[in-house]
């Protein structure tokens, strides 16, 4: 389909001999919010990190199969280029402690030695922080270090940092696990706004979150993609018994 942004074809991941992600085939469309859920150790995070080639940074980690980004296999492209093209937000907010808020937002450019004019940088900072719903709160303290920000604000700063690189796709690895409920809902509200301009893939172990925020949900179990469907369908009448067991909490 013209509208497909990410497509996995027979994708497998290994840690040494351990077969962690088994033969995944999945197609994701532009401007969708996809939730990836499943019990601990089911391979969802490993799969996510395979998309932007962070998986191979772990010693002993390998993968087989294709992941197509806009039709091109990411494993045929330069890994660093892939990582710059795809944004990622992690579980624990990780702004760079030695950089100010302003510098954190444009860190992707600064650390790569890409020179931008001050006007360009100002524009990027304002646009990214606005998209991350953080501009109003920090616009008067852009040159302070980000350590005084709350957890939710730090996570939104990390989102702004990812957005500043103008990716089409943003990956989230359990982005609200380390946040309190109020910060969690501010980040979740952000997903709805980001959808207009980006495609989001969110790994979460909180299935209510998957239900609240996503258009389609993928359920992983023991390395396999068990079911991938409209979220409404999955939570009212899942097709696979394993999905039903997981959602209703009947797993041992």
């Amino acid at each position, binding site marked *: 389909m013209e509208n497909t942004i990410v497509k996995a074809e027979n994708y497998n991941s290994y840690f040494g001999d351990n077969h962690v992600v088994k033969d995944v085939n999945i197609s994701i469309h532009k401007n969708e919010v996809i939730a990836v859920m499943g019990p601990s150790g089911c391979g969802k995070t490993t799969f996510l990190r395979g998309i932007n080639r962070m998986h191979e940074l772990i010693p002993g980690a390998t993968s087989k199969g294709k992941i197509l980004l806009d039709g091109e296999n990411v494993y045929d492209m330069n890994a660093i280029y892939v990582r710059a093209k795809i944004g990622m937000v992690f579980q624990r907010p990780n702004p760079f402690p030695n950089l100010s808020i302003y510098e954190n937002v444009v860190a992707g450019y600064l650390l790569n030695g890409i020179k931008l004019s001050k006007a360009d940088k100002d524009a990027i900072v304002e646009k990214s922080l606005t998209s991350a719903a953080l501009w109003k709160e920090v616009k008067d303290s852009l040159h302070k270090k980000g350590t005084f920000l709350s957890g939710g604000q730090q996570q939104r700063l990390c989102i702004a940092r990812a957005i500043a*690189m103008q990716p089409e796709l943003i990956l989230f690895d359990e982005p609200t696990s380390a946040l309190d409920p109020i910060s969690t809902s501010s980040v979740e509200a952000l997903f709805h706004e980001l959808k207009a301009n980006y495609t989001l893939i969110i790994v979460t172990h909180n299935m209510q979150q998957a239900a609240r925020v996503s258009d389609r949900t993928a359920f992983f179990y023991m390395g396999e993609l068990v079911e991938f469907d409209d979220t409404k369908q999955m939570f009212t009448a899942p097709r696979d018994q394993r999905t039903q067991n997981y959602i209703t909490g009947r797993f041992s």
Partner: protein
Amino acid sequence: MEPKLGIRNVKSMIFKGVIIFFAFLITVPLIIVLLYIIKQGITQVNWSFLTHVPAPTGEKGGGIANALLGSFIMVMMASVVAVPVGILAGIYLSENPGTKLAYYSGLCVDILQGVPSIVVGIVVYFWVVKPLGGFSAIAGSIALAIMMLPIIIRSTEQTLKLLPDSLKEAALSLGVPYHRVIIKVIIPCGFAGILSGITLSIARIIGETAPLLFTALGNNFLTMKITGPMDSLPHVIFSYATSPYDDWHDLAWGASFILLMFVLTLNIVTKLLTRKWKIQL
């Protein structure tokens, strides 16, 4: 149950008292040494003391200017060699903890730390002094550098290991190549810790006498010639304290005081740096 509790409370208090007493006891030797040296040495220190070379035998006055300059030059040269090598080695050890190379080189570093300083001096004597044909500041710096290395390597490694992995991940996920991640993220974030390792190693070697005995020896004159013998603070203390002249004994006390102040300052700076670093992260 009541009486048993009572006895246990008493035992607990006695134990607490014993621990506090011994903790206090430890500070006593340090305080005594400090006070004594300060008392003996502070009267010696004046501007002339710091800027003049030793007076000829028998004459009053003189100073330790040559030793100050010599220590400064040799510590500088040692740092120039030891700091880059140490930091890079520390980076390697923290980034690749599982490899055989890391294991064996780590082992060597630990062993090197335990090598007696006089042995280092003798080794450098055979490697550098003999081939070059004489004592020199270069040889002295090499000996000092060998002693600085283990401290810098281990503290760099420990500092970087304490940095959360998420920092590296964040940079890598932005499409930053590995070498830039190290140079622009890891080292700046661990900077205070690395710096404290450097100041700690300087504090260590600034007072080392034994290695310099065989390598730089001493020199009564103010000199910048690094291919010849050069004086240093610990050496001056050694030679003046063991000399028969009272004047020179006084100089030794003064030099001890100066040396002590340096080491104290460096240690305090190190402590402050590590505290600041902890807050940063």
